[in-house]
């Protein structure tokens, strides 16, 4: 066959030329986009209903059109949810719960990430006699259902006089976060070249200097993952919040439940929706801000660990 017989054939010794061939919308591609669209809508509709309802007044809600946009936008439900809604006996809104949650969250996240990174570093690089067994025990801890440990934990905290206080809950959150986060850090540190650790030892760095100057700066991706897991886990916790604290110390999730599940009076759907969104705002923000780092950190652990 000669080149002249094929109109599209490229003469020998020339570069490709001409317009870029148009990418045809293939059947597979249509399927992919269609399913993605359906899934996106499926997840977005509840959010839309929540936002729309929270901006409506009660008369408008009684009309029953839950998908309709608000005709008369009002922020009153949001204000009420934050500062006036009744959570049991008091009617001070979610604000106290929010601040309780913040007070619980910050020390628990800082402590659990700090301790997990340190113990992960030890398990990965300072193996001692029996460290493997010790690590296995810790992993068992990660897979035992939390409910099993609640009663002993209550007894333990009552013994030391921390039961019902915020500090008791902080300790519980820190402890329960350790197994999984230690595993994350250990796998990440184990994936770093061992020779870096050896080089640092030859350079005269000791246990703490290697940790703070070499390992910790290198662990940023996994530290972000660990932090996000802890922030969302602790913020969304309900069970421990109910069990280990007293009403004045209830975290936001528990107070949200108390607002939404009030059995007396009119059900204020708009206030409930606003309160729910307010409660979910913290984990949502964390995901949006650090989503990119989160994915990178997960991938780093998955590929090399």
């Amino acid at each position, binding site marked *: 066959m000669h080149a002249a017989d094929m109109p599209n054939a490229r003469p020998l010794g020339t570069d490709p030329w001409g317009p870029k061939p148009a990418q045809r919308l293939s059947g597979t591609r249509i399927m992919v986009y269609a399913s993605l669209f359906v899934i996106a809508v499926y997840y977005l509709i509840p959010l839309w209903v929540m936002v729309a309802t929270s901006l409506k007044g009660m008369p408008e809600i009684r009309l029953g059109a839950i998908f309709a946009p608000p005709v008369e936008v009002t922020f009153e439900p949001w204000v009420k949810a934050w500062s006036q809604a009744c959570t049991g006996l008091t009617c001070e809104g979610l604000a106290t719960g929010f601040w309780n949650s913040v007070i619980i969250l910050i020390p628990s996240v800082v402590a659990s990430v700090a301790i997990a990174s340190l113990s992960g570093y030890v398990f990965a690089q300072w193996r001692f006699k029996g460290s493997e067994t010790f690590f296995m025990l810790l992993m068992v801890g990660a897979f035992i259902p939390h409910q099993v440990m609640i009663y002993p934990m209550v007894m333990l905290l009552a013994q030391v006089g921390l039961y019902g206080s915020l500090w008791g809950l902080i300790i519980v959150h820190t402890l329960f976060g350790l197994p999984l986060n230690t595993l994350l850090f250990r796998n990440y540190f184990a994936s770093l070249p061992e020779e*870096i650790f*050896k*080089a*640092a030892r*030859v*350079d*005269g*760095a000791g246990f703490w200097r290697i940790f703070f*100057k070499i390992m910790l700066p*290198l662990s940023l991706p996994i530290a972000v993952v660990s932090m996000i897991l802890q922030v969302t886990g602790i913020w969304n916790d309900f069970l421990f919040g109910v069990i280990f604290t007293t009403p004045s110390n209830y975290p936001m999730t528990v107070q949200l439940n108390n607002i939404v599940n009030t059995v007396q009076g009119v059900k204020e759907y708009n206030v409930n929706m606003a309160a729910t969104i307010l409660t979910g705002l913290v984990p949502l923000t964390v995901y949006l801000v650090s989503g990119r780092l989160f994915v990178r950190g997960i991938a780093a652990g998955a590929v090399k660990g």
Partner: protein
Amino acid sequence: MTDQTISVSTRNLSLGYGAVTVLRDLSIDIGKGEFLVLLGSSGCGKSTLLNCIAGLAEPTEGQVFIGDRNVTWLEPAERGIGMVFQSYALYPQMTVRGNLEFGLKNARTPRDEIDRRVARAAEILQIGPLLDRKPAQLSGGQRQRVAIGRALVRDVDVFLFDEPLSNLDAKLRSSLRVELKRLHQQLGSTTMIYVTHDQVEAMTLADRIAIMKDGRIQQLGTPDEVYGRPSTLYVAQFIGSPSMNILKGLVADGAFITGDLKVPLDGYRFVAAAPSQREVRFGIRPEHVAIGREADAAPLSLQAHVELVEPLGSDKLIWTRVAGEAFCVRADGRLPVAAGETVRIGIDASAASLFDAETEARV
């Protein structure tokens, strides 16, 4: 260890992990300013020995001396060593300067002294323009230079290299090899211990080579010695490429006999008295076999059928068969010879090696 000329020595060093023994009763003395290469295939214990000297692995038994100190229980940093790793092991988050300074800062070296030493190392290794870059911005060769610099600034008497050139491409490897040798000359009295599996690196760099197998040193000698008079069959076959031709046979009546071939052993230097009626392995390197006109002058000459020719440019490898064994002859690249032809080859025992068939030791 009062001997001033000895820089590093190990005494009866053993190391095992459970059932696996990595080092066996290993003793070696390394002279001040010597370039010693630990050579062996993977798993022979060469890196473990280096790690024991560095203090990064703890021997099960035995002791390590550096200078006149027993350092067996000292931390790596207290041993007066610098170390260069195969993967460079630079601290990724620090600049080149940060990498060089890290060890000195750990030792609380005064600021002006740090600057002086970093400047000197940067000058010797020509990495001055790279000082403010991060390791990720450097090429492989530059990274390894920084890694050497990190050992250099420590101002130590002993350098340890763990396969430092293995991650580099062939061209860079040979140029850095020359630089390393030059650095060794420049530093004068610095002892260098260098682990590699590459025999070219070993031959070109070493003052002495220690060839290791199964946690033991098979032979310790100059490159000429390990090449010319290998002390075991393993060393004979490990050193040299293509490796030494080995013929199975018998020593009897002052000759090596295999099949109907008889090589007179008049010119061979026996280690002890010449054995008689002993099973041996007769080894001769491809480059020590005479070919063509010179073959007739050899004590034994024979006709050989050419099975294969590998031209290397300057040389030609001619594969034949002698007494049923594959037999390689290195000839001048211009020698006209092709597969299927017959050539005349000559074997002279004076360049050969004889090994006991059972102990595999040189006889």
